[in-house]
């Protein structure tokens, strides 16, 4: 009946673990699941990365396309992120147009890109008012076991680091772009934001990196995004239990150390990928 | 005893908001505080949590001797309460029951047998679309509300299916309570204009029937306009109508 307890009274089941300052999967309250990263495995994309946080698996493929800059920003390219939660990744998602969670996640990622200037949009401009790059960053979840946002931002950052753009020039005579696939360049990454998500249990216990079950039982969810200079890029808590300012500060402190860990991981994987070539 | 009530006293008749707390000082009523605090009856809008009483609706704090407290709030949506009489609309027949819309979140059920004189053989003549005046015998959050058209003695006691004619309209739950108050001046004033029949359901539905359709509509309109009028304004209006202003 131990297993029975778990499905029939999940709340009580989790409480019994939290009382002992641990979690059903054996983690401590402040412990993230093992995080692994793999970059550049999709050949049809200009850049790609696959990240796993525990079971949660998210893939990001970046496609660069040429376009005309918008009239109000003639010297800038643009970045279009999208988060997709296909029915493949969990039975909670149905086929059809994106649900609220996917839309909110897409908006969140778009805000992070804008707020932090991960990539200078001017870098994406090829010729003012004429030609620029559009980076389509399609993020797809393959296995949804909670903490989507953390995984999305890691995979986005790693895929951007992995991405390479061919050299493009505009032929003076024909006025048409010429693509030189022999010469490729990496993107200049300005900021390295990393997200850390937390779940609040019974209005007081805070745990990091919640699984999907922990998310569904939590009374509040928090996502803090910091950059390498320890500045906050987002502090998102869509509602739920009210918390003391001090508790929020604890979350930010944890996020700061997590940023270091993740950036180290991304650098390591990116380096080994480069050297293996 | 007074110690407990004193915490409310200042606020009686005042507006309170959700989250407001009445705390009785445990130290002053230490001996047998348990017994005494038990005696406070929390009506709608109040709930007890240990030695605190929490307000969970906005409205006016009311008190009735000896120890009943509740929040008088103006709301439009009806939530069924056991024992309350309401006007419902029959929406479906299924098996042994009628489904009745009472304006709550769920349709109420009404048994074929819950009518005066009804037996398994002798079923009451109720059609989909009929209006019924009935009373809740079951109403709580866990169950489908259940209505009956008989009192505890098995008598109709004014309940049952409405006859033909008449007019049904909706008013706020606050106005309904004012209409039902034992000495309602509003009703008395109205009756002075011309005679009519009226049934008031606690779910905000009012049914009226006068001699002619015209008169029925006048009554209905007057009642609806009472919603936001002071007693003085109302009297002035009624007077004008009685003098043939319409």
């Amino acid at each position: 009946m131990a297993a029975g307890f778990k499905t029939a009274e999940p709340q009580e089941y989790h409480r019994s673990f939290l009382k002992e300052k641990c979690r059903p999967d054996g983690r401590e309250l402040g412990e993230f699941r093992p995080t692994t990263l793999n970059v550049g495995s999709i050949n049809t994309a200009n850049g790609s990365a696959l990240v796993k946080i525990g079971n949660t698996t998210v893939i990001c493929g970046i496609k660069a396309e040429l376009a005309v800059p918008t009239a109000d920003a003639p010297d800038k390219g643009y970045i279009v992120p999208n988060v997709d939660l296909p029915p493949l990744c969990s039975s909670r998602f149905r086929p059809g147009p994106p649900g609220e969670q996917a839309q909110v996640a897409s908006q969140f990622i778009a805000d992070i890109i804008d707020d932090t200037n991960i990539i200078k949009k001017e870098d994406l401009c090829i010729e003012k008012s004429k030609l620029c790059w559009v980076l389509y960053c399609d993020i797809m979840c393959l296995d949804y076991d909670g903490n989507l946002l953390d995984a999305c931002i890691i995979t986005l950052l790693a895929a951007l680091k992995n991405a390479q753009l061919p050299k493009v020039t505009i032929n003076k005579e024909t006025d048409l772009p010429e693509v030189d696939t022999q010469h490729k360049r990496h993107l200049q990454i300005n900021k390295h934001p990393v997200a850390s998500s937390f779940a609040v249990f019974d209005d007081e216990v805070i745990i990091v990196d919640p699984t999907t079950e922990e998310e569904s039982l939590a009374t509040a969810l928090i996502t803090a995004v910091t950059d390498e200079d320890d500045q906050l890029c987002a502090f998102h808590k869509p509602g739920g239990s009210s918390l003391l300012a001090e508790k929020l500060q604890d979350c930010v402190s944890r996020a700061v150390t997590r940023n270091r860990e993740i950036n180290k991981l991304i650098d390591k994987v990116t380096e080994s990928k480069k050297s293996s070539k | 005893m007074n110690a407990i009530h004193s915490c409310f006293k200042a606020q009686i008749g005042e507006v309170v908001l959700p989250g407001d707390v009445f705390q009785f000082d445990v130290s002053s009523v230490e001996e047998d505080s348990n017994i005494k605090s038990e005696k406070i009856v929390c009506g709608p809008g109040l709930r007890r949590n240990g030695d605190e009483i929490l307000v969970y609706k906005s409205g006016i704090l009311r008190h009735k001797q000896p120890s009943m407290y509740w929040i008088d709030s103006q709301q439009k949506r009806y939530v069924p309460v056991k024992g309350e009489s309401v006007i419902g609309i029959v929406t479906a027949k299924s098996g042994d029951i009628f489904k009745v819309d009472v304006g709550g979140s769920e349709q109420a059920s009404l048994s074929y047998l819950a009518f005066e004189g009804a037996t398994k053989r002798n079923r009451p003549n109720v059609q989909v679309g009929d209006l019924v005046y009935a009373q809740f015998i079951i109403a709580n959050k866990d169950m489908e509300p259940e209505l009956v058209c008989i009192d505890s003695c098995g008598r109709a006691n004014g309940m049952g299916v409405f006859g033909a004619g008449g007019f049904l309209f909706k008013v706020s739950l606050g106005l309904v309570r004012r209409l039902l108050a034992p000495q309602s001046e509003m009703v008395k004033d109205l009756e002075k204009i011309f005679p009519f029949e009226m049934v008031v359901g606690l779910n905000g539905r009012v049914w009226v029937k006068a001699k002619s359709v015209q008169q029925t509509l006048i009554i209905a309109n007057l009642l609806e306009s009472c919603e936001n009028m002071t007693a003085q304004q109302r009297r002035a209006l009624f007077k004008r109508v009685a003098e043939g202003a319409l």
Partner: protein
Amino acid sequence: MSPMKLCVPGERLCSVEDCISGAGTYQRHGSIFASLAGYVIRRNEGEELPMISVVKETEAQLLPDVGAIVTCKVTSINPRFAKVHILYVGSTPLKDRFRGTIRKEDVRATEKDKVETYKSFRPGDIVLAKVISLGDVQSNYLLTTAENELGVVVAHSEAGVQMVPISWCEMQCPRTHNKEFRKVARVQPEYLQA
């Protein structure tokens, strides 16, 4: 001992003359084929032909079947029936929720006409029941609790405390000592640990 034989769906296991087709297999054109990926097991039962079956994991049963004992959670009640979510078939948790219905007449075996659903179940109760039919196009699985071993196993009182059974039709709240009516299951030893 040689390692146990494994198979994938579609593999021919043997002729129908050699074995009886058991779970995880099917017959076609005089042969028995595997319909599951798993371990092939041959079992002799009596003097008849051995039974051949394919076993995958412990959680073999995927769907509530007629006669199965299921654990469910009551989601709503009305005077005619209680609606439930089926959580377990036997001891196997279901990944997806299936809905079921316990009609008033299936609550208990005796005095069926006097049953009141409100005095039998409340939303949130955990109930042991047995599948009596898969229902028709409109309805869900039909379940019954008309056996001593079936009925409410876990229930919370108005005060939110888990109650203790005191008879086959009553449970008591350990905090307020209020008694509430339920169709209580005579708890079998394996459920006592909870």
